């Protein structure tokens, strides 16, 4: 079986976000990019299936601009076999459905039987693409999973359905999965892995390679801003017993949240 891992590069989570002069997005200068944290768990799960000989090949499929080849190379160093870099300026700012159409096309072209993504990318926080890809391909989906087993042509996964509930679901391959953090602990690249990754192939593609014509996005953003500042609070001073009593009183009578 061949597994496709959907991988995206995003600003590092410790980035102090600033808004650009036009209010049309974030200030990208000097921002350090890294693999979307959840995608590391997606990749790890694919690599685990390869370690267990359930998967023969793991291919990273990634849309992104400058620097994206380094993220793919990082994934190859951890153990993926090949990469596909869809580098297409027309996809910058594209809506999720357009992105999903391109990725679905890439998955078909690669002949993968399983696609694993992170549960969401921590830049735009859309969490839309995996389900959209599944719908386009007509495949089942199991999203935000914390456990996975694959046996023959069948999968079983545990997904988060909210309210503290998790659901065990099963179905037949092919399938689209998305990884939560609890799924596994991502590995680091080894030095031999890094050396080997240099010789692994990265295919370069654009949206048109998959027959997708990128038009005006259906979802448009404007008026970017930072969140409003919080009003200044106050530090309660005194002996522990006094400040605790004061806090309880403030929560009940001033803030009225208890």
């Amino acid at each position, binding site marked *: 079986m061949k597994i496709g891992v959907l991988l995206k590069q995003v600003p590092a*989570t*410790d*980035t*102090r*976000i600033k808004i650009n002069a036009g209010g049309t997005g*974030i200030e990208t200068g000097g921002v350090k990019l890294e693999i979307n944290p959840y995608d590391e768990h997606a990749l790890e799960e694919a690599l685990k299936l390869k370690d267990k000989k359930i998967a023969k090949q793991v291919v990273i499929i990634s849309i992104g601009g400058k620097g994206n080849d380094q993220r793919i190379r990082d994934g190859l160093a951890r153990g993926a076999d090949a990469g596909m870099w869809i580098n297409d300026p027309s996809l910058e700012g594209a*809506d*999720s*459905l357009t992105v999903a159409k391109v990725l679905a096309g890439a998955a078909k072209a690669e002949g993968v039987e399983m696609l694993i993504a992170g549960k969401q990318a*921590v*830049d735009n*926080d859309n*969490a*839309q*693409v*995996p*389900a959209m890809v599944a*719908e*386009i391909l007509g495949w*089942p*989906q*199991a*999203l*935000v999973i914390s456990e996975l087993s694959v046996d023959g042509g069948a999968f079983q996964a*545990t*997904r*988060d*359905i*909210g*309210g503290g*509930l*998790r*659901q*065990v*679901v*099963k*179905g037949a391959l092919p399938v689209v999965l998305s990884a939560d*953090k*609890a799924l596994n602990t991502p590995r680091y690249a080894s030095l031999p892995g890094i050396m080997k990754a240099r010789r692994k192939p990265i295919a370069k593609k654009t949206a048109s390679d998959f027959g997708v014509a990128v038009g005006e*996005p*259906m*979802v*448009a*953003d*404007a008026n970017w801003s930072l*969140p409003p500042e*919080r009003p200044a*609070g*106050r*530090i*309660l001073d005194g002996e*522990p017993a006094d*400040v*605790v009593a004061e*806090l*309880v009183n403030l*929560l009940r009578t001033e*803030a009225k*949240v*208890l």
Partner: protein
Amino acid sequence: MPGILILADHDAGGFKTTALELVGKARELGGPVAALAIGTAGGEGLPADLVLTVDGPEFADFNTDPWVAALAAAVEKVQPDVILATANMIARDVMPRLAARLGVGLACDVVELKLEGGAVVGRRPVYGGKALFDVTIKSSPAIFTARPNAFVPVAAGSPGGVEALTVGVSAALVQVVETLEPAGDVADLTEASLIVAGGRAVKSTEGFDQLIRPLAAAIGASPGASRAAVDAGFCPHSEQVGQTGKVVNPSLYIACGISGAIQHLAGMRTSKVIVAVNKDADAPIFQFASYGIVGDIFTICPMLTEALK
């Protein structure tokens, strides 16, 4: 005046507050309000113009395919201009799939929604809440999911009408084997109105269990944690608050021994009231706190638990 279809959440106690919040916002936007209630035969309590109900064995447990089929059938019947759902895990599962089926745009997790020159404009947080933008959808229907607690709920009331919707469901692509209940009786963090969270300073699982959980239990709050506490193994991933955990919006957030890394602040900064307890007077969390106590959580938390019991 856009016609609106909402996906109305309900549980054993009837329609949830989040459903009443969506009706409240839909009334404000104007136009007829239809609601889809899946897995129930009744519409009582939800003051929409029309409640469409979908019931049957295939709707007993949540499952993607029957849910999307029900939504698609409701869209076909109502022909809405706007579809609203609460931004919960189920909406995350089904709404993108519905959007792809209809070939339309979706904006998730909006915290504001208003009419501007006839167009519905949402405002949504991105980068885990470190930035926000206005979002418009140039397709019809336009689908929005909204964060819990973002809109003012209407009072419960009777619907204008209730109609059973017939949904043709083909075999689901996945089968539900079982549903796993949470260990304790705690509200989902993303919908919790009270949260008590612990950081690395709890030192151990025992520390988390002795300081954070009892304090949470004393006020009926959900326990949460910083990434540092989760990575150290003091509590499960499901309790992590922050950019790579849950984004929360409670009325009270008590942060115990949490320094306030930028990723954590992103996930809880919209809390109405933030209380910080930390030994380090220079911890960034104090800049966000409504009330701060500089002190040892091993001293303060048990006293606070006792005082709030």
